């Protein structure tokens, strides 16, 4: 099996899963209980919080655990909008955000907020200049993803942060779900107020994630109840998930130190090979792109057909974001880059992890060549 769908989800590390099992079995008490068992579990969470904070170089009190990336994004966007609406009701984001951000903004539009969706260029990159032109006196939030999940384009986060530095009233949220471990980011230096993460994108379990909330930033909670997570998120914590996530993050950050070169080389290899296949068009830009995502189109072949044909040969890739790939319309992201309909509706995404090898890359190219060849023959008949 060649698993090249890591941007949809990654395979959990066995070590993280072992942690999950041990914690679920042995540390089952409610961390809010005041007896000794509760105390132990509370200590586990605070150790995980500290480990995660150390790994991304922020303070433990700035980490809010959530049920995943979608909740982190919803909490950041709606939490800021609802809490600070008296200051202004204008929000800025981009046309290529993940559905969990995009749809949050759509909902806020219905609640009377004014949302500007910034366009992107051919490369899928948003322009700092465009952003500057859209900033108004009543703007309270700018939300931009770091690495685009379909194209792999890296957005100019530091440049945006620098611009927003001059507008201290505007909060800056970054969706870092695709970037963590692959494309580093400096939270404080980039002026980021909020940043979202999801455990299953870095080989942790599903159903858990976290939001970085810079100290001093206030939010409306989405979930009301107990005073867990500094009152940002009520509800008994997902203990096994949180501890396993802390472990997975450590392993990923460690791997990124010595596996990054291999990943970059694998991506370059696949890119180069794809660019030599006739009828294949690369959509991921060569510069400003993450080391693990390659998006390409094979006009004339329906992506679904190609995916199933590859699957028959043990290769797993995807079309667009898994979260929206069941709807049949064209990719919103590719459409935003201005590609014509045929190219935008025939995109395939290969997404890698540190676990993938050169050998898998070579086999993938070979299989892809054969599959395209076969399909073209069939279609001509």
């Amino acid at each position, binding site marked *: 099996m060649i698993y090249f769908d890591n941007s949809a989800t990654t395979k959990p590390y066995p070590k993280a899963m072992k*942690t999950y099992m041990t914690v679920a079995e042995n540390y089952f008490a409610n961390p809010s209980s*005041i007896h*000794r068992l509760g105390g132990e579990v509370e200590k586990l969470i605070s*150790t995980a919080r500290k*480990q995660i904070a150390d790994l991304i*170089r922020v303070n433990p009190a700035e980490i809010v655990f959530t049920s995943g990336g979608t909740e982190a994004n919803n909490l950041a966007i709606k939490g800021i909008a609802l809490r600070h609406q008296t200051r202004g009701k204008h929000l800025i984001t981009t046309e290529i955000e993940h559905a969990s951000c995009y749809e949050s903004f759509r909902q806020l539009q219905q609640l009377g907020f004014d949302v500007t969706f910034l366009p992107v260029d051919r490369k899928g990159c948003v322009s700092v200049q465009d952003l500057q032109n859209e900033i108004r006196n009543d703007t309270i939030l700018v939300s931009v993803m770091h690495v685009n999940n379909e194209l792999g384009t890296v957005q100019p986060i530091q440049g945006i942060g*620098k611009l927003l530095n001059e507008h201290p009233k505007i909060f800056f949220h970054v969706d870092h779900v695709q970037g963590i471990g692959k494309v580093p980011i400096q939270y404080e*230096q980039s002026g980021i107020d909020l940043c979202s993460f999801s455990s299953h994108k870095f080989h942790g379990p599903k159903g858990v994630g976290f939001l970085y909330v810079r100290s001093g930033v206030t939010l409306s909670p989405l979930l009301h109840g107990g005073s867990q997570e500094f009152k940002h998120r009520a509800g008994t914590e997902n203990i096994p998930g949180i501890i396993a996530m802390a472990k997975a993050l450590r392993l990923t950050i460690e791997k990124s130190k010595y596996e990054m070169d291999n990943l970059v080389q694998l991506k370059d290899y696949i890119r180069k090979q794809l660019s030599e296949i006739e009828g294949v068009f690369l959509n991921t830009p060569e510069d400003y792109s993450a080391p693990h995502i390659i998006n390409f189109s094979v006009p004339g072949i329906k992506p679904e057909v190609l995916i199933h044909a590859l699957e028959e040969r043990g290769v797993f890739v995807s079309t667009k974001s898994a979260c929206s790939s069941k709807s049949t319309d064209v990719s919103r992201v590719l459409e935003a880059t201005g590609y014509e309909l045929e190219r935008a509706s025939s995109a395939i995404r290969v997404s890698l992890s540190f676990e993938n090898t050169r050998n898998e890359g070579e086999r993938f190219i070979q299989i892809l060549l054969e599959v395209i060849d076969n399909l073209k023959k069939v279609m001509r008949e």
Partner: protein
Amino acid sequence: MIYDHIIVKYGELSLKGKNKHHFVNQLRDTIRRKLKPYEGVTVKKAFDRMVIELHGADHELIVEKLQEIFGIQGLTLAVKCDLELENIQKTALEALKQAGPAVKTFKVSTKRNYKQYPHDSQELNHLIGGYVLKNSEDITVDVHHPDVEIKVEIKPEATYISCIDYPGAGGLPIGSSGKVMLMLSGGIDSPVAGYLTMKRGIRVEMVHFHSPPFTSDRARQKVEDLTQVLTKYGGAIKMHVVPFTDVQKAIKKQIPDNYSMTIMRRYMLRITEKLAAQNDALAIATGESLGQVASQTLPSMNTINEVTNLPIIRPLITMDKIEIMEISRKIGTYDISIRPYEDCCTVFLPSAPKTKPRREKANRFEQYMEIDTLVEEAVNNTETVHFKEETETRDNAFEDLF
């Protein structure tokens, strides 16, 4: 990152006379201990400063560590380059760029120890400043109040360029002023008092009063966690956990309710004084702040203080709660302190503690108690725990999980 060394400036230390080297050596030892986990980083003494050579280590991490050390007034990030004008210009530009996105104005100040250098300082200011201006956007020169001052030192062997300064923690090097016993409760105040005491170069040992089963393991854990945080600033710390249940029971039984808190604190001082003697400490530190609670009024302190003639250091005595909370957030103890567990001061808290207790009355109430026995038993059964400064605080039992 281009920075290759950090200059450590002493501040108050440099005013010391003959025994200055004693302070400086103490500081150097602390810095070496702190930076030990970072391979390749070296520490060198120079006249009136210390130089940390990074050898590729992440300067932000090292600065963060150095900012935890008392006795350092300020830190300057610097880069060494050769004497070629073109290289000096390029390095200066790069150093400015890395000073951060908010920089709008700058100036160049050159010092030329190497008098044979073909350009004089004034010329160099122009040559370097002009180059930086030409090669950057949105940045102008401001010679009076620049955001960043690019300091260039031309020496015979090399050029040193710096433009980022960080504040240090101030104070005196830890261990240069002896030792005191700190009464640590687990609240917001006492850890801050510990921090400020250490700031003057004093080593502290913690004294914590524990009353099982009225106070829980989690209350004790809280104090242990606080102590662990404070090791960042003070190095290894000993914590003495005093079993206090018997004393509290005796007070409850024999002392009128409104005086129980006053008497309890007198016991705490007596026990701490004994522990001080055993551990060669010459004073006691507390987190008292005038007027905050009933035990912290002048009549209260006067009555409580009667039982010891050891100096009592009260760094917070004139501070407002807000100021104390601010420091506690800064040093990383706030989030631990606000965990909501009972401590020995709250379990037996009378409904109306006396705010104006009198010494005579306290003495009269105490005369029927077996003070010496109670104190001795508490001291004899005191448990001592050692805390080492850790680069990562991780519980051993949990280690495999993370």
